[in-house]
């Protein structure tokens, strides 16, 4: 017989235990980012991995999202003759929501999974023990560079995504829907406020932290050979995606409720 109270109690306890161990892990990672030794080559590697090598995926997804937004909003707004709002919808949706969330999810699939797999493999093949045997703290060597690269490079990716997404809207607006080029750009410029872009960049930094934290955490704790590494990879991607969508609400609320 399963006692329902015991079951609920167990689930709640497990939940808080997980939150606790993730928090401790994050604290360890970040605290080693501000105290020596600094493994600059590892920082460089992950800056490039996230900020440069993820550019194509982010550019493609934001470009097509901007294009779709222009089409959709045009067909919607033309029902009550408000076609002029297309530039506004594209600019606001891209900078506030779509660029950060899409980039976050793409990077979760690309980077979070790779980090969990790499660190997980290092764990099960005792490479992490070997690091310690060589007097090297794995938090300094593995975790800190990844977390910092995620926090700093995601806003950069999203800034690029913002520009490309707006460009996607512009291309469809001007070449397909027949808007005046200068007027479209002017509308975009007029409607955008600093807050729109900044909130998107703050979201990006938060998502960068979430993705790299989940990748490192699940990889670091993986056990039991190839199967364990596979499980860690899946958990890293799924938990990143869920946390991104939850965090999205709270950061939005922080910026846009008065």
């Amino acid at each position, binding site marked *: 017989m399963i006692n329902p109270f015991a079951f609920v109690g167990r689930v709640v306890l497990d939940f808080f235990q997980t939150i606790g161990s993730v928090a401790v892990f994050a604290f360890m990672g970040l605290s080693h980012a501000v105290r020596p030794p600094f493994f600059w080559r590892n920082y460089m590697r992950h800056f490039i991995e996230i900020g440069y090598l993820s550019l194509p995926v982010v550019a493609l997804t934001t470009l097509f999202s901007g294009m779709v937004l222009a089409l959709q909003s045009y067909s919607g707004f033309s029902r009550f003759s408000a076609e002029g709002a297309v530039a506004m919808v594209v600019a606001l949706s891209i900078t506030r929501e779509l660029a950060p969330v899409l980039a976050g999810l793409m990077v979760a699939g690309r980077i979070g999974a790779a980090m969990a797999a790499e660190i997980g493999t290092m764990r099960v093949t*005792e490479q992490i*023990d070997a690091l*310690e045997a060589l007097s090297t703290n794995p938090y300094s060597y593995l975790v800190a560079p990844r977390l910092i690269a995620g926090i700093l490079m995601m806003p950069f990716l999203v800034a690029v995504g913002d520009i490309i997404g707006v460009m996607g809207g512009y291309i469809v607006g001007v070449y397909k829907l027949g808007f005046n080029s200068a007027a479209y750009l002017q509308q975009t410029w007029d409607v955008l406020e600093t807050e729109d872009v900044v909130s998107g960049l703050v979201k990006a930094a938060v998502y960068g932290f979430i993705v790299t934290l989940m990748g490192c955490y699940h990889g670091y704790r993986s056990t039991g050979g190839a199967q364990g590494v596979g499980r860690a990879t899946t958990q890293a991607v799924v938990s990143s995606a869920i946390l991104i969508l939850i965090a999205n609400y709270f950061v939005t609320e922080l910026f846009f409720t008065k």
Partner: protein
Amino acid sequence: MLKIQGLTKSFGDNHVLRGIDLEIERGDSLVILGGSGSGKSVTLKCIMGFIHPDAGTITLDGDNLVGLEGRARSAMNQRVGMLFQHAALLDSLPVWENVMFAPLRFGRVSRREARKAAVGWLERVGLDEAIAGILPGELATGAQKRIGLARAIAAEPELLLFDEPTTGLDALVGRQIDALIRSTITDMGATAITITHDIDSARRVGDHVAMLYQGQIAWSGPAANLMQSGDPVVDQFVHGRLTGPIPVPALPEARA
């Protein structure tokens, strides 16, 4: 001198170590023999601090090794080098950076010097300098073990731990590795603990031998006495007999 007293470790109901006592003089080479799963690797991991023992003390020249954290642990790990059972080379770094990891890490050499020095260490373990730039994942197990050995000795520690240095290698390579370990110990004046299943290898590498059985040291003595220990457990183990105090699970086709 490395001194281990009353070392105890259980994983749940699995009582792996039940009070290990060992003393190793400086410059001495100790071989630990024992069946698979007898806790040989766990013993080394307790010395390295990867596993926290439930009870017992470990000291190196009087300095405690148990329960160290942070800087104290990092400082102690500089005094101890380890060759892992499966080499555990960092597969994101080329061979030469693996070998020179510790010297590079502590800024004792520039990257240019390290690359040159790595070639020297590789030659010393019988490897060609051509592999210096390769990633370790592309190499055979034998080569990986040698690189692991080069990495452990390049850090120039006081105490060297070798976890099954010759397992999985052919007899010729195995003999070479044994000779290498022996010469490293003599040249560097380091203390060494080597784990093995291989009786011949144990006699070549060890000054002393200890037999780990049921979580305790069943016998220890000079390597020269290994074959005539008079201990029934050691006797059965070194002669590979199916009958004796060590239970051997009966397989359907097993013949004595």
